[in-house]
């Protein structure tokens, strides 16, 4: 990639999503119900990509939607469920148990170290995680001796996604991205991925961003496109900005608990394929519902 200059990378959701190509490995930022880049994922699914591989530290039902859309062949994760109160997803079970999607399981730290190794420009990192477990039956893992002490360690290979989708609180037009609250694995993912697409709650002026450079988790030179998408993680949470809408998540969980992949397909139609724009999608929730989640976030962190 040649041009590392400070250049304007503002894009529409459609322009940004066009950076995802068939066969890509896409890494999704955030974690489970937190800062899931819903606006970007919606747009990627709508473009009908083929044979994607997906990685996420804890995967939620966004992975269900990519499965029923027939767009992914492999999921690399440490855990996938809808969330503790809602249990394991019947949709994930259907696709994995029938062999349509491969479930590539790592411990949470091991997956984090795979992204970090790539972020560090190395081919692996060592850890004690997964030693003595069946997780190291995974053929991508190698056992090694610590060169100084001789201790047996588990070497996990760098994971270099083709594309990363990350939602942040604020960014400037160059792609400097700032996250409030926990950063999950997003700093490492942004450095590990070949292409990085940011969606942001708010686009701010570079001068304003520079006043708080210590808050910048994603530096501009890792980023390829930045899209303003207010409420871009909804109905998942965005730290301090809005709480997750548990009713929406519960509604999905109830539907798939009964009808499995069929319900997920209907969900895909209603929330991803039918609403053309992200504004149309948000309108399905309505302003009051979003305002209520904003109020809860403020109350929780007060």
């Amino acid at each position, binding site marked *: 990639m040649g041009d590392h200059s400070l250049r304007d990378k503002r894009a529409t959701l459609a322009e940004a999503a066009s950076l995802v190509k068939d066969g890509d490995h896409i890494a999704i930022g955030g974690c489970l119900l*937190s800062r899931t880049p819903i606006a970007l994922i919606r747009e990627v699914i709508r473009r009908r990509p083929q044979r994607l591989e997906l990685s996420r530290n804890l995967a939620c039902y966004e992975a269900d939607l990519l499965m029923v859309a027939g767009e992914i062949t492999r999921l690399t994760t440490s855990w996938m469920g809808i969330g503790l109160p809602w249990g*394991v997803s019947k949709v994930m079970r259907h696709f994995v*148990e029938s062999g349509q999607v491969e*479930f590539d399981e790592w*411990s949470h730290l091991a997956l984090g170290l795979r992204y970090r190794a790539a972020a560090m420009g190395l081919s692996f990192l060592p850890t004690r995680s997964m030693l003595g477990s*069946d997780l190291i039956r995974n053929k991508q893992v190698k056992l090694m001796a610590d060169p100084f002490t001789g201790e047996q360690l588990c070497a996990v290979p760098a994971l270099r996604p083709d594309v990363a989708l990350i939602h942040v609180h604020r960014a400037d037009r160059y792609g400097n991205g700032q996250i409030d*609250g926990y*950063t*999950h694995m997003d700093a490492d993912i942004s450095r590990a991925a070949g292409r990085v697409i940011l969606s942001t709650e708010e686009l701010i002026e570079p001068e304003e961003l520079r006043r708080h450079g210590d808050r910048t988790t994603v530096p501009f030179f890792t980023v390829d496109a930045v899209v303003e998408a207010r409420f871009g993680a909804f109905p998942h949470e965005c730290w*301090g900005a809005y709480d997750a809408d548990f009713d929406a998540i519960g509604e999905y969980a109830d539907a798939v608990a009964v009808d499995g992949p069929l319900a997920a397909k209907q969900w895909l139609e209603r929330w991803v394929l039918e609403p053309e724009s992200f504004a149309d999608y948000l309108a399905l929730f309505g302003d009051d519902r979003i305002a209520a989640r904003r109020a809860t976030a403020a109350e929780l962190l007060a």
Partner: protein
Amino acid sequence: MSSVATVDEILAVSASRLLEDGKLVFAGVGTPLLASILAQRTHAPRLTIVVEGGIVGPDIKAGELPVSTNEMRAGRHASTLTSITDIFLMAQAGFFDYGFLGGAQIDPYGNINTSVIGDPSRPSIRLPGSGGANDIATHCREVLIVTAHERRRFVEKLDFLTSPGVNATRLVTNLALFDFAGSSRRARLISLQPGVDLDDVRAATGFEFETAEQIRILEPPTTGELGALDELRGGAGRTAVR
């Protein structure tokens, strides 16, 4: 008010009593977090809770228990918010005294399966997976396994070993308390929950276990402990969800 405690309450109370003051506990959401906050509110006010989402020392609001380790309710007023990888690297560096685990299958050595039921290459049930469980099992100094006591859960041989039992020190159930300190390293029953006899436990356990020479009877949950749990859950076992 009924004095009969639920399974979840018995587990939370029994687990909380194992936590010493002044330590760091790595807790997941659900019973582990309830047990840890209960300990803070009873005998261990200087216990610090650490959560997978990169969270140290949160102040969980009563009636707003988190549904995941990575949401605002879990991170509220934390003294540190960092990344997931960093919090687990602190675990690997040896900072955390206790870790809590549960699991779909548990063997007599405290090894745990949360990955698959059946043949791993073509599972009959694909479970959610390790998440941080393998890391907690490997890196926390003492691992407390807390689970409802069900025969199908306690198996001689796991279908898949997700989390090794190397650091397991206690197995807490609604029927009994076990350690792994016997010469065989197999689960050894050291205490019974009140009103439970040894035969009940044997009938409800799918593997053979040892018994300590002297078996104690655990104290039932006190009204103080149950009241604190009620308050935390916002009354009547409610969570933030629906």
